[in-house]
Structure formats: structure tokens, C-alpha cells
């Protein structure tokens, strides 16, 4: 996994609550057996009409948001299914950071597995970012995971909170399967102790 330390990038808004995983990556695109190539389908039904033409109103189709790497949205972002295709699509499109007042659990968890930093801020702070993003073309933020600070060129600084383990995980781009396997002796001991139960003989 690609480590995440610090990023400066253009901010793109998706101004909706409850952005669900069906919206992030519609099911017709879940059939691929690879992890890559999902970015072209991100927010597909909001981005493209029935003929596959871009819908000009949708933020990601507007020239000012091209090349954005930070996504801001509203509460309960990523609700719905467990499909990791959602963070894969977000990452593949070019986003490394998603900022919202709250996230659905599975999506939030899936982000960290893919080097995406989901940041929870208050409703007011997110509203402030929406206003600044809308007000200024090319509005950019710097997200520093070392110091847990978000800042812009106009003097705004916002501290964000993140579980320390998750922070280290992203900073170092760790392989968590390897971490779990360091406890092989304990896994084996557990399996031995619960042998009967795991064999349905209780």
C-alpha cells in the first residue's frame, strides 16, 4: 500500500448527505476481477447521462475541479454495501483524501486498506470548506498526516483527529496481514483450544 504523509491538492465537492456506495460505484461495474480501473466509473450515474455523455452540472465534470485529489462531502459518506470497489474507484480517480462529517463504518475501514485518508470534521468545519471551495476556483488544501493539520493558502488551519494506530498504518503503508501473522503462535493456540467447537462437535 502506498504510504500517506502529506498532500496538497485541489478540492472537489459532492454536496449530498448519505452518499452511498451504489452512487460511488454502481453495481454494473462491480464485475471486474481486478482492483484497478474503477476510476472511470466513479459516481457514474451522477457523472454521465444515459447516453454516456458527461452531465455538466456534476462537480467532477467541471473544469475547475479537474485533477482534484481531495473530496469533500456530507454526513454518512460511504453508507451501504461493503464493496471495496468504492474506495478503489475513489483512489483510481485520483482522490487520496475524503473529508466529511461522518462515514459509514465499513467504507471508513476500507479506505485505510487502500491508502486513502478519510477525515471526520464537524458539520461547521465541513460547511466552511464547502464555502471556500465554491468561492474560489482551484481552491486547494494541504493535508498533513504527520501533524494532523489541514490548511489552505488563505490562513485556514483545522486540526483533525485520527486513531493513532490508523495514522501509523497510513504513514508507513503497512501490510496488516503480515502484522497479524506475527501472532501465529496465538492463532494456533486458539485453534487448538477451540478445536472441538470449530469442528462442530462442541
Amino acid at each position: 500500500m502506498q504510504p500517506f504523509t502529506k498532500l496538497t491538492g485541489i478540492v472537489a465537492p459532492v454536496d449530498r448527505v448519505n452518499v452511498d456506495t451504489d452512487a460511488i460505484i454502481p453495481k454494473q461495474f462491480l464485475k471486474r476481477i481486478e482492483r484497478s480501473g474503477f476510476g472511470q466509473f466513479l459516481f457514474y450515474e451522477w457523472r454521465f447521462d444515459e447516453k454516456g455523455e458527461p452531465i455538466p452540472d456534476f462537480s467532477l465534470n467541471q473544469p475547475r475541479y479537474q485533477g482534484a485529489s481531495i473530496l469533500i462531502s456530507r454526513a454518512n459518506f460511504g453508507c451501504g454495501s461493503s464493496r471495496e470497489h468504492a474506495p478503489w474507484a475513489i483512489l483510481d480517480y485520483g482522490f487520496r483524501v475524503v473529508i466529511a462529517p461522518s462515514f459509514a463504518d465499513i467504507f471508513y475501514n476500507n479506505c485505510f486498506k487502500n491508502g486513502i485518508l478519510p477525515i471526520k470534521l464537524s458539520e461547521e468545519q465541513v460547511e466552511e470548506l464547502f464555502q471556500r471551495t465554491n468561492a474560489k476556483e482551484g481552491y486547494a488544501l494541504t493535508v498533513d498526516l504527520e501533524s494532523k493539520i489541514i490548511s489552505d493558502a488563505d490562513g485556514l488551519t483545522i486540526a483533525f483527529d485520527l486513531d493513532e494506530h490508523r495514522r501509523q498504518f497510513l504513514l508507513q503503508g503497512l501490510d496488516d496481514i503480515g502484522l497479524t501473522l506475527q501472532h501465529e503462535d496465538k492463532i494456533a493456540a486458539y485453534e487448538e483450544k477451540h478445536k472441538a467447537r470449530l469442528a462442530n462437535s462442541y
Partner: protein
Amino acid sequence: MFTERSRKDHDGVKSMSQKKTMFEKIWDNHVIHSEEGKPSILYIDLHLVHEVTSPQAFEGLRMSGRKVRRPDLTFATMDHNVPTKDRFNIKDPISKQQVDTLTRNCQEFGVKLYDLNTIDQGVVHVMGPELGLTHPGKTIVCGDSHTSTHGAFGALAFGIGTSEVEHVLATQCLQQAKPKTMKVHFIGERPVGVTAKDMILGLIAKYGTDFATGYVIEYTGEAIRALSMEERMTICNMSIEGGARAGLIAPDETTFNYLRGREYAPKGEAFDRAVEQWKQLVSDEGATYDAVVELDISKLEPQVTWGTSPGMGTGITSSVPYPDQLPTENERKAAEKALAYMDLKPGTPMTEIPIDYVFIGSCTNGRIEDLRAAARVAKGYKVNPNVTAIVVPGSGRVKMQAEKEGLDKIFIEAGFEWRDAGCSMCLAMNPDVLQPGQRCASTSNRNFEGRQGRGGRTHLVSPEMAAAAAIVGKFTDVRKWKFHSEVTV
């Protein structure tokens, strides 16, 4: 909204003398390693696998030279892509590739697969309990958010992403931060004509789609105790629609009776020993939860959703709400967008909404009792000429049982299409897809934009309400239904 309190020992393990909730007992029984400030490593007793969220996980194993640690605790089926007509003929080449990939992966890694040739194939969350794989006290995961279904047995069951699928395949463990606990207490008796589906839809309509984010729910109350196993599965299934990754119901005689004799249930004396262990799982008297939520269901009506989020629902005697009367700006904006998508006018009575399509099935409501309930409504009636109605059994076994009882004939005579098992129109990854603008009464779990097909409009209801809507051509109050005759089973 609800009471919440902090608890100092939240991340720790309670000592033996402390009173524990069922969740805490199961959690403590599966932690193989914990360290201050880090997620716990949790042993997983049962891993269910389907074709959509597993290919990249198996590929990851191959790339790192890892094996499936416990193929004996891993069970797979294909459900999302499976056509419900002419099922062996998957026309979409990418769907076919995904299904074939699962077959190949299961062969290569030695995982038991219930494929299209077996009677057990079906929606993974219908199949697991049917096979007796789901036991109280187990930790169960699947790359599917509706894994919460299995919590109906008092198992800690939750959905995971594909990276975690790979993690469990490789280690039979998961790194998990300990969730908080929430008690959802149903007060009062369930009125006649009101189903388990209405209980969970009513709960989410009241508290929203993220009230339980970060929590594991335990459902309690006399109304829960009175539910059958299948009804309990309907409730736990939609825990995720309230934001909770898992929902639990304490095991009791209903649970044990359901399990007895099933293929993977313990046999003979082992079953009795298991029951003794399972009885110990029940939350201790006086155990405390991080949050408590209550819902009085004594006046609950059959529910219908009107919007594009499962929390946007109301009773059948109500009307489509006026967005400007909603309490917050975000809710108003969301409701306006939802009503525009759904093409509904505020103030329209729910009973005046005409429908084009009916879908009866899914991991929420695709079990035999659901089909019996729908057939009872449909018997002796004809589907409205403006409506296409399909019935998709949750598994091959559900289909077989329904046919044994003659339910298929009731549906077919009434004009419903009788299909083969799979996820079908719950998420429309197979050929069962709504056309743009079509409006569907669906017994599934999500009414998101485009979920059942681009531009499709989904209203979530119970099987009884769906069957009645198929016949009337619009939503109708099933409590007033004139049953032609009882279905004898």
C-alpha cells in the same frame, strides 16, 4: 436522540465478575491478542464468500504466496450475478468471468463451493443458516454488508471489504477496533398485519440511517422473542441500514429448534452440549450498553419508503412528506433530491402511488416464510395488468420447499413470475433490472438511486405489502386485505 454514556473500560476486556452483554461475551471469547491503542485480533469462526467481493482477495493470496488457512471454515456460493431464468446461460461475459473465477479460486484453494448445480446455492445469507453453518456465539464475516443477518442467531456477524476478505482467508483472523454496544428495545406487541420488515423499517425511519454507526445492536423486547428465526433474520439483516455493522438477538428455544438437525449443526450429544454453551451467551441481567434506543411498535403501521435512503419511510396511511417541514437543512435538501428522483409530489397519499414492478426476494425477505406470506395475499387474485411481478426464492432449498407446498402454483396462477434463486433485483447485477422511470415495490433492503437499475425507483416494503401492491397496482394497506382463502401448508 438516545441515551449515551461513556465507559472507561470500553476498549478493555471486562473482568469475569463484571456483567457482560452478549456482544462482549462473544468478543472476549474470540480475542486472540490485544494491545493498548491497537485494534484487537479477533478469531473468525466462519467465513462466507461470494463472487463479487472475493476475486481480488484470492488474487492477493496468489501474489503473496499465501494459502487459505482454514478452508474447512470457509464456504462459498455465487449469488449476485446469477440469472434467475436460464441460469446456466450467463450472457454478460464479465458476469460469467466473475462466476467462473470463483469456481476456479475455490478449486485452487480447496474451499467448499455451493455452485449452480447444487440445491443449496442461493443468497449467501439465506444459504448459511439453512445449512446450519450459523451458530450462536460464532464470529462470522463475509464480504457483504448484509452479513449482519446471521446475528439473528446470537452470532457476531458483520460485513467486511475485500482486503479484509483476503486477511481472513490468510489468517482466519481480523484486526478490529472494539465497537460500542447499543440496545434497541421494542416495546409493545406487534399489531396484526405488521411484519418484522415493518419493525426494522419503522426503526430506521425514526432514528435514521446512521444512528447505530460504530455500534453493535442487540435487539430486545417481547416482540423480538415472539419472532420466528426467519423474522429475526429480516430484522438483523437491515441493521446495516441503521449504520450498525452487526445486530444480535439472544438465542433461545426458537434458535435451537431451528438449528437442530441441520447439516452443519452439531449432532446428538454434541448438540446438547452446544445448547448449554449457547444459553450462556445471553446478556447478563443488569449488563449495561453504551446506548439504548426504544421503539413502541404497538401502533406501528405497515411501512413504505418514499425516498432514496432506507430511513425515508412512513406508514401506509401517511403521505409523501413536505421537504420544507423537515427539521434540518440537510434533510430538506436530501428529501427534495429524493422526491425529484422518485418523481413524487409532497402530500400524495402512499396508497395513491402506482407501481410498475414488484420484486419479492433477497436476503431480507427471500425465505420460505416470506414466500408463504406473499402467497397467502396473492392466492385467488391476479396481478394488475400494469405490473410485472417476480418472485425470486432466496435459495434452491427455499424454491424446492415452496414448490412442495404449492406456493409456486399460487404465484403463477396469480400472474407472478416464478424464478430461480439469487440476489436478483435487490441490486440488479444480474439481468433483472428496472428500466429508467419504473417504480418497484421491493422486499429488499436498499432504495438508493439506481440500485435496481439506472433511473429505477425503489419502495421498500414487506412481502405481504409487495404482493398486495402487485395485485392492486399501487400500495395498499395489507391490514385490510380480503384473503380469498388460507394457504394450506
